C-alpha cells in the first residue's frame, strides 16, 4: 500500500478518474439499464414476472450498485487530498456530503432486496399472488424518490466540488462550471420529485444531461490529463503559508 501513501497529485488524479469512470459506468448499468429492462411502470405483475425471469440480471444490478458505492469512499478521500490545498473547509464538505449521500443510497438498496426476498416462496401461504406482487412493487415504485434523497446530497457535493475545481488553477475552470451546472440539475430534479413528481417526470431525460456532461468531463480530464502538478504545488505552498499565517 506504500505507493498509495506516496502517490503524487497526478497519480491521485488518475486513480480518482478511474474510480469515477467505474461509478459512471456502473451507475448507468445499475440505475439506468437494469431497471429500464425489468421494471414495467404501473404494472406490478409484469415487473414481478421480469424479476423472476431475469433474477441474475437484477442481482447483477445490485452488485454494480454496491460496487459504485464502495468506490465513492476512496474517491472522497482522494478529493480531500487533492483539494484541501484550495480550500480546506469546502474540501471537507465535499467529503462529508459524499459520505452521507453514499450511506443514504446504500441504505436505500434494501428496497431493491424486497422483491427477491418476497419471491422465495415463504410468503405465498399468507398473501395472495397479487398482494405479494403489489408489496414487491412498493419499493420499486419508491426507488426514484429514494435516489432523489441521495441526489440532494450529491447536488450540494457537486456545487462545492465545482467551486473547488473552478478556483483550483490546476484543473480547467470550465470543468468546474460544468460540474456546478450538473449539480443544479441534480437539485432541481431531486426537489421536483418531492414536491411535484408529475413535473419531475417531464424533466427527464434533459435534466440528467448536464450532470452527465459535468461529471463525464471531470472524470475523463482526471483520467487522461490528470492535474497540473506545478500549479497544484503552488496551491500547496500558498495553503501552507496560510496555515502559518493563521497560527
Amino acid at each position: 500500500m506504500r505507493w498509495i501513501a506516496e502517490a503524487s497529485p497526478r497519480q491521485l488524479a488518475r486513480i480518482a478518474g478511474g474510480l469515477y469512470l467505474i461509478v459512471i459506468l456502473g451507475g448507468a448499468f445499475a440505475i439506468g439499464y437494469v431497471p429500464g429492462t425489468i421494471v414495467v411502470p404501473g404494472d406490478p405483475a409484469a415487473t414481478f414476472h421480469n424479476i423472476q425471469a431475469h433474477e441474475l440480471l437484477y442481482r447483477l444490478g445490485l452488485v454494480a450498485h454496491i460496487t459504485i458505492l464502495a468506490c465513492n469512499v476512496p474517491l472522497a478521500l482522494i478529493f480531500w487530498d487533492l483539494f484541501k490545498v484550495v480550500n480546506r473547509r469546502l474540501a471537507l464538505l465535499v467529503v462529508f456530503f459524499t459520505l452521507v449521500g453514499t450511506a443514504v443510497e446504500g441504505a436505500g438498496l434494501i428496497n431493491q432486496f424486497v422483491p427477491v426476498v418476497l419471491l422465495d416462496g415463504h410468503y405465498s401461504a399468507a398473501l395472495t399472488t397479487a398482494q405479494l406482487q403489489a408489496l414487491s412493487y412498493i419499493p420499486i415504485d419508491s426507488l426514484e424518490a429514494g435516489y432523489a434523497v441521495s441526489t440532494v446530497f450529491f447536488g450540494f457535493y457537486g456545487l462545492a466540488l465545482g467551486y473547488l475545481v473552478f478556483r483550483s488553477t490546476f484543473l480547467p475552470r470550465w470543468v468546474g462550471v460544468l460540474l456546478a451546472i450538473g449539480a443544479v440539475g441534480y437539485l432541481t430534479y431531486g426537489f421536483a420529485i418531492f414536491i411535484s413528481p408529475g413535473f419531475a417526470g417531464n424533466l427527464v431525460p434533459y435534466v440528467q444531461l448536464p450532470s452527465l456532461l459535468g461529471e463525464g468531463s471531470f472524470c475523463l480530464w482526471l483520467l487522461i490529463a490528470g492535474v497540473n502538478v506545478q500549479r497544484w504545488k503552488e496551491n500547496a505552498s500558498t495553503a501552507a503559508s496560510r496555515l502559518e499565517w493563521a497560527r
Partner: protein
Amino acid sequence: MERTLQGSPLSPLSPRSRARITGAVYLLFFLTAIAGGVVTPGTAKEVVAHEALFRVGFALSLVSTVCYVAVTALFYQLFRSVSRSVALVAAFFSLVGCAVGAAGSLFQLAPLVVIGDAQYSSVFDVTQLQALTQMLLDLGAQTGSIALVFFGVFDILIGYLIFKSGFLPRILGVLMVIAGVLWLIFLSPPLANHFLIFVEVPGFVAELALMLWLLIKGIRVEKELGEPA
C-alpha cells in the same frame, strides 16, 4: 507566486467571521428543521389529507439535514484547535446520525407511493393500505430515534470541546452536555416519548443558545489558536 495572501479570495477568514458563518448555517438548519417538523403530518390519514404539505415538509427536513452536514464540517474546523481527535470523532458521530436520519426519511416517501394508487387499492382494502402506510411512517419515526442517539453523543463531545475551548462561554458547553445526555434516552424510544418535553426542551435551548451566540457574539478571537495541519 501568482496570488498574494491578502489579495486572494481564498485568504483565511478571521476566526470571528468563521464562527458567524457557522452560526448562520446553524440558523438555517433551525429554520428548516422547525418548519419541516411543524408541517409534516404524522398519521396516515393526515398524509392523505395534506399531501402537498407533507411533500414540502419532507423537502424542508431534508434541507435541514444538508445544513447539519455543513454545520458538522464547520464545527470540526472551529474545534480542531481544541482537540483534533475529539473534534473528528464528534464529526463522525454527527455524519452517521445525518445518514441514518436521511435514510429513515425514505420510509416517509413510501406512503405517498402507496396511497391513492389504483394498483395497490385493487389488491389491498382501505384499512390494509392505511395500516401499511402507518407502519412505514412509524418505522421512519423509529429510525429518527436511532439518529438522535448519535446526535446525543455528538452534542456531548461538542459540549466538552466548548468547555475546554476558552473561546466560548463554558455554560454553553455544560448545556450541550446536558442536552446530549438527555438525547441518549432515545436508546429507549418509549421512555423518551414518555418524557418527551423534558428531553426536547433542554436540547432545543442548548442548541438555540449556541447558535445565537455564534451568530451574534462569534468567538473570543485571542483565545482561538491557529490551525494545526
